[in-house]
């Protein structure tokens, strides 16, 4: 095991520990915590400290130690958590995380906040306990310690009378004697052993007289370190008479160590939980696996396709191949995807701190934390989201007084949500503040020369001025969001990862910023269906249920307006085959897939066959082929077939106003 490999493990583990620490702090911030929360944070910091010491990261160890001491006080209820304490430990976690980062490049460097936070932490540690000797952190292993005494090697004589606890703790006298080296004579006084009738198996009776040649007293003491308190150890001075052997004395030769231990089973290697991989390798793997799946399908087709009987052994091997290929595909697909949970958790702090800095009471809500997106996307979303959330608190929410003046709750709400939206990941940042002040935005834009004075702009166009380079709505730059970085930077960073960002805002009700990200590598659950002769995939996220209806339940209201009766409600039918131009005749028999639109309206997609549900990799069409109305992307199915992934929202829009207006209408009820 090389030191580099160990370090890599250490840093990967630190990443997880920092995450655990952050999660714990968030729970405390949300006031949703218990003693186990503090324990978990403590353990994370403690583990970082423990391992960091092994690599000599002294700055990191010293800081972790101080932080841990404060956490220990919280853990033992000698320090309560109030807003100040929470702020200090939150900042301490930041510093610790930075120190971990720094340790990878410059182990002795201290982040700017190191000293102030250290001072804050010290403020919670009683003076009596300070200063703690730093050497303690690097206390050497008992047996590795060098003899500290100035004593010269000589002959040491001791009397050692272990009591029962010595044996109970897994010690054996001969092991300690052996450790003292070859020049040891041990004489056991068996007179102390009582008659069998009085013998108590739980008592140590034997007393040993030892003479150790060529050792110092401290060396001997060191060997007996673990036996301290487990019996009597008397050092006999040279003046004392040498132990006189009584008649019943038993001389014991210190034996050679046993070498006939039973062969234990082979140890399993310590398992690593995370692995750092160059993303390009994963991409290559994903592509190759796609090819493998296709190749598997081609082989199966060649063997089974002509309908002649297949050798059972070949058929069985083919089945194995099919199974293994799918296993590989599933495993590979899951490599890059990660839930957005960790990102969202980090954002909780951003909102809390923004609330503190602006004096606004903010409640932060998250939705869709389990939504999986590409890890690289997660990393690159952190900055824009931070900025957007700060904006939401700083500019979006009104002051508590202004909120009180309306009928709003004094605490504003900022919501961060993630969801899969037909081949995209949609991330929304919304606030329940005053909404965009369009008059002011326009005025500002005119003042900044972004638009001409007599321009007539729609609301959407005005809203989008926020993204114009150099635009800043704050008349005075606040110490929070106004750091010279505008929404244009947010937009640029979202665009750079292939996404787009839009705004919707309602006067007095708040604003919502929507980030739509492509999901070229994301995994999507979908239902595979046939439409005419095409195989298509409907994303599961939008599906409510699938229905095989009787012909009585399909009702024609007009030639282009068919509805499906579902438990007393009438749902507009969207017949996919004619809609997508695959054929002209209607499919009135279904089966149907009920989908829910973003508006909450329900529609029934008529398809020709519903096959099964599976996880698929989304392959973008736009880059390779071009945008197709109603289709978001494509995928390669397990059998090598290309299937188009439908975009339910776009299909609903494509179906036109008939379907749009008649949703959930009760007919004749």
């Amino acid at each position: 095991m090389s030191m580099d490999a160990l370090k890599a493990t250490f840093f990967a583990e630190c990443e997880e520990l920092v995450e655990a620490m952050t999660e714990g702090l968030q729970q405390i911030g949300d006031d949703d915590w218990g003693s186990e929360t503090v324990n978990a944070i403590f353990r994370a910091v403690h583990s970082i400290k423990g391992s960091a010491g092994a690599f000599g990261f002294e700055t990191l160890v010293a800081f972790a130690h101080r932080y841990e001491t404060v956490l220990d006080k919280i853990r033992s209820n000698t320090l309560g958590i109030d807003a100040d304490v929470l702020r200090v430990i939150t900042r301490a976690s930041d510093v610790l995380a930075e120190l971990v980062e720094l340790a990878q490049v410059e182990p002795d460097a201290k982040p700017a906040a190191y000293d102030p936070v250290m001072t804050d932490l010290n403020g919670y540690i009683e003076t009596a306990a300070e200063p703690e000797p730093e050497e303690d952190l690097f206390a050497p292993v008992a047996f590795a310690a060098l003899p500290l005494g100035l004593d010269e090697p000589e002959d040491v004589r001791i009397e050692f009378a272990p009591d029962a606890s010595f044996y109970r703790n897994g010690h054996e006298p001969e092991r300690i004697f052996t450790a003292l080296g070859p020049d040891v004579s041990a004489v056991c006084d068996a007179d102390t052993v009582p008659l069998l009738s009085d013998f108590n198996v739980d008592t140590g009776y034997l007393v040993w007289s030892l003479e150790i040649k060529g050792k110092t007293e401290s060396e001997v003491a060191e060997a007996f370190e673990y036996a301290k308190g487990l019996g009597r150890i008397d050092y006999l001075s040279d003046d004392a008479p040498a132990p006189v052997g009584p008649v019943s004395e038993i001389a014991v030769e210190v034996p050679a160590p046993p070498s006939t231990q039973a062969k234990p089973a082979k140890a399993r290697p310590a398992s690593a939980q995370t692995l750092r991989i160059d993303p390009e390798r994963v991409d290559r793997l994903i592509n190759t696996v796609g090819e493998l799946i296709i190749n598997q399908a081609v082989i199966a087709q060649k063997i089974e396709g002509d309908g002649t009987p297949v050798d059972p052994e070949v058929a069985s091997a083919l089945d194995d191949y099919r199974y293994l290929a799918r296993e590989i595909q599933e495993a590979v697909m899951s490599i890059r995807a990660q839930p957005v949970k960790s990102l969202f958790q980090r954002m909780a702090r951003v909102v809390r701190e923004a609330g503190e800095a602006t004096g606004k009471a903010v409640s932060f809500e998250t939705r869709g934390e389990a939504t999986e997106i590409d890890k690289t996307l997660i990393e690159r979303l952190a900055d824009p989201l931070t900025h957007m959330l700060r904006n939401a608190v700083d500019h979006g929410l009104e002051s508590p007084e202004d909120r009180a003046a309306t009928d709003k709750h004094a605490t504003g709400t900022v919501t961060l949500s993630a969801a899969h939206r037909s081949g995209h990941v949609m991330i929304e940042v919304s606030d329940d503040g005053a909404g965009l002040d369009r008059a002011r935005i326009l005025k500002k834009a005119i003042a900044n020369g972004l638009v001409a004075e007599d321009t007539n702009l729609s609301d959407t166009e005005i809203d989008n001025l926020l993204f114009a380079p150099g635009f800043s709505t704050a008349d005075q730059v606040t110490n929070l969001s106004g750091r010279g970085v505008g929404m244009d930077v947010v937009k640029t960073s979202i665009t750079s990862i292939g996404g787009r960002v839009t705004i919707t805002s309602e006067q007095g009700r708040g604003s919502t910023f929507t980030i739509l990200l492509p999901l070229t590598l994301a995994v999507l659950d979908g239902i595979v269906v046939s439409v005419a002769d095409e195989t298509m995939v409907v994303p599961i996220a939008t599906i409510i249920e699938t229905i095989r209806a009787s012909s009585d339940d399909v009702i024609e209201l007009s030639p282009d307006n068919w509805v499906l009766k579902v438990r007393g409600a009438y749902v507009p039918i969207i017949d996919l085959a004619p809609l997508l131009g695959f054929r002209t005749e209607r499919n009135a028999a279904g089966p149907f897939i009920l989908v829910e639109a973003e508006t909450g309206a329900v529609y029934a997609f008529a398809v020709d066959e519903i096959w099964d549900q599976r996880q698929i990799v989304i392959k973008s069409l736009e880059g390779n082929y071009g945008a197709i109305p109603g289709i978001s992307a494509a995928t390669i199915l397990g059998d090598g077939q290309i299937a188009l992934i439908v975009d339910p929202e776009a299909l609903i829009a494509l179906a036109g106003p008939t379907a749009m207006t008649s949703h959930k209408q009760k007919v004749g009820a």
Partner: protein
Amino acid sequence: MTALSVLAIDDSRTMRMMVTAALENAGFDVVTADDGVQGVEAFGQRRFDAVITDINMPNLDGFGVIEAIRSAPKNRRVPVLVLTTESSDEFRNRARSLGATGWLVKPFEEAGLVNTVRIVTGQDVA
């Protein structure tokens, strides 16, 4: 020569790797467990010549591990070493009173760890 087996219990992956590397280099077989509960379970499944346990762990801490191991009379002769950052007397006394054979302080030196394990298992000390 047959290898002695050591059960190393630590919730830190880095520590498990370090202990494993150090002891395997010295010819021991090492089995690892990620927390106290897993450690006690692993201990119950086969014979070990020694146990090294961290103290501060989720689910069951090292003190609990020592207690669990020592609660069965047949296990009293198995050396149990504590490997932790704590070094106070109070702490050692508690570990000792529960039945710990010895203790090592993190960060440990490879030679010290190996030496100590050799001593408590009665293996020849190099």
